[in-house]
């Protein structure tokens, strides 16, 4: 099996977790490790534990806000259906009521989206604070590692240093916005023009579309960051494969004392769980899918902005 095939198998066995689970999972060893007979002093440990608690709380808030906003979008979608039904039936009373409810739910969605943005901002801050805290802990552990002469303490410090380092790396590589958020953003269906739309309706629809375009911008930027990370990884793997493939192609490394045995499975990956499947896609496919998602978001954004401009133009005509 070649290096490339092994990469794919390793990726196939990668662990995939939900954002909230990620937030809790790494907390356990950190707290257990640092609250134990820790090499860090009590003040540092306490401070880090507080930062972690704040981060955990921020993760919970963010998850709750995203869930609430998604539920509200579904509700808004239902209201939109009611508006259209009333319009088709030419039931003015029902249409007026449906419009009111739609506007009320729109306001609520706006509020929830503001809450989500605030929660996201808070989570970013909490994450950065935790990254700083873990970095400080790492520096402190490294200093203690240099200072200590006791072998047992050295091993203990080294063990915790590894824990802190790996948690830092994991946290750093996490992303706030899953790709599913992109599709959820546009799950409220199409917003269309109606001849009977008044000033309020036109303004509300234009604002919904413009806000959605703004959200799409944020998601596109987040996807850019994700793609960049994947491309960086892809580049490393490709360069590594090119290098190893180049030196192995003509058998130059196959000196006999190191090739008495055919290439074994020594570099295979670890199957972690039969249900952990999302990460099985090759890097090329993951990048491709994210790009497709970006393209789709851009198209939606352009469409929404164009439609919003039309609504505003109509609004101006009504005002004039």
């Amino acid at each position, binding site marked *: *099996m*070649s290096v*490339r*095939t092994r990469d*794919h*198998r390793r990726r*196939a*066995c990668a662990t995939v977790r939900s954002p909230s689970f990620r937030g809790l999972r790494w907390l356990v060893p950190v707290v257990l490790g640092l609250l134990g007979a820790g090499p860090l002093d009590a003040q540092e440990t306490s401070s880090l534990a507080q930062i972690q608690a704040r981060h955990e709380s921020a993760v919970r808030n963010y998850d709750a806000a995203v869930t609430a906003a998604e539920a509200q979008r579904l509700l808004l979608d239902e209201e939109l259906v009611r508006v259209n039904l009333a319009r088709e039936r030419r039931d003015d009373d029902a249409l007026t009521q449906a419009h009111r409810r739609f506007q009320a739910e729109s306001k609520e969605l706006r509020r929830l989206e503001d809450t989500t943005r605030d929660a996201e901002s808070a989570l970013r801050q909490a994450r950065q604070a935790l990254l700083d805290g873990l970095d400080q802990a790492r520096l402190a552990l490294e200093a203690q590692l240099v200072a200590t002469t006791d072998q047992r303490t050295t091993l203990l410090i080294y063990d915790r240093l590894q824990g802190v*380092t*790996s948690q830092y*790396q*994991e946290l*750093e*590589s996490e992303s706030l916005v899953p790709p599913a958020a992109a599709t959820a953003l546009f799950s409220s269906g199409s917003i269309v023009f109606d001849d009977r739309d008044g000033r309020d309706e036109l303004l509300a629809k234009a604002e919904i579309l413009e806000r959605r375009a703004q959200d799409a911008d944020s998601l596109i930027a987040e996807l850019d960051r994700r793609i960049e*990370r994947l491309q*960086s*990884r892809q*580049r*490393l793997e*490709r*360069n*590594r*494969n*090119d*290098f*190893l*493939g*180049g*030196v192995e*192609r*003509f*058998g*130059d*490394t*196959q*000196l*006999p*004392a*190191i090739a*008495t*045995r*055919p290439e*074994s*499975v*020594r*570099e*295979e*990956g*670890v*199957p*972690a*769980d*039969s*249900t952990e*499947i*999302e990460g*099985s*896609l*090759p890097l*090329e496919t993951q990048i491709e899918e994210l790009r497709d998602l970006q393209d789709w978001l851009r198209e939606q954004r352009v469409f929404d902005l164009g439609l919003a401009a039309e609504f505003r133009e109509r609004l101006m005509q009504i005002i004039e």
Partner: protein
Amino acid sequence: MMYDPRGRRVAVLLGLVLPFLVVGPAAGQVRLQDLVFTGGVSVESYEGNLSAVTVPVIDSTDRASAAAGEFGAHGELRLLESSGTPWDRYLSVEFDAGFRQFAAAGFELRDYAPREWVGRLDLSWWQRLGGVGLVTAAGTFRGRTVADRTPMPLFLQPGYATARGALVFQTYEIEGVSLEMSIDAESMDYQSVSLLSQLDLLDRRSKGFEVGALANRESWRMRFYGGARSTEYHRQDSFDPEDPFRRDRTLHMGALWVLNLAAVEAELGVEGTLNRSNSQRPEYDAVSGRAAVHAPLPFWDLGLHLYTVLTGKTYVHDSPFVRLVPGEEADNASVAYIALDRPIVRNLGATVRFGWARAETDVGNSYYSRFGTSFLLNYRPS
């Protein structure tokens, strides 16, 4: 001039099979992945004073040099790929082919112009088995042919064709550790030519098994493994009238640690081997260590690659005659490669590579060594 018709046939066969696979009937589902073309030049120097029974002529020089140009292509065909279920499957064919032309100088007899053709085909199928684990079946076919092979010390492997099949089963993690078992069989056929029938002595059939345990963490993994192998050299004499052909039994065990960060990969491995045979000549104990690093550098968009293998080997019995076939059974062999790469334009990258290799016999302290510098361009059409 040497000519290996079987090796040429293998190369031609690969050339014929690959285009068929690319445009085969399942073209709607087949994806050509990571196609890369490589071209480059090298300057190499060789030193050594041993002769080789598998090389047709002997030259008295201790030092030779060569310039070489090479072309290569690599790609992967994803024939089947499914994800999202506990029964995911994946089937791929990976191919690699290359051509290298040398212009060698420094020999007493004449200047040589050896030419190598190489080809490799890897078929790999893996499948999840519900909640149990992952099973992999793999087949590898490899062939090479060499024309105008030089005397030592410019060692080029002779032409051969080899086929290998392997079956691997890996469990899902149990307490953070995955277990694995594999069996494999290999056939290797060296291509003798007229006046050099001794290459056939290297023909072999082997089969083996291996078990291992793998601990996987966020940023690193550690693997311990061990196994046994049975190899039959049906053209080699064992010097035992009751058991006339050489049969080796090999035990191996080792450990490999791999660090896998977002932008850095590193590995350290050690492996011990005990080889016992019905012929005393090839019985040996060996230890090899290897290290590799792949990482981006913080300036000029450079990437660094380092790969080293160091091997020590001792024979169980003293022998009054040359017991090794240089290049195929060297006493100890070490290689080190370091490379720097960087992108030049979109889809095109350049690599500067330095390589060193040394293989030594245990008779008369004879050895050959090689030092080379290469400049390579890698082009990916997409």
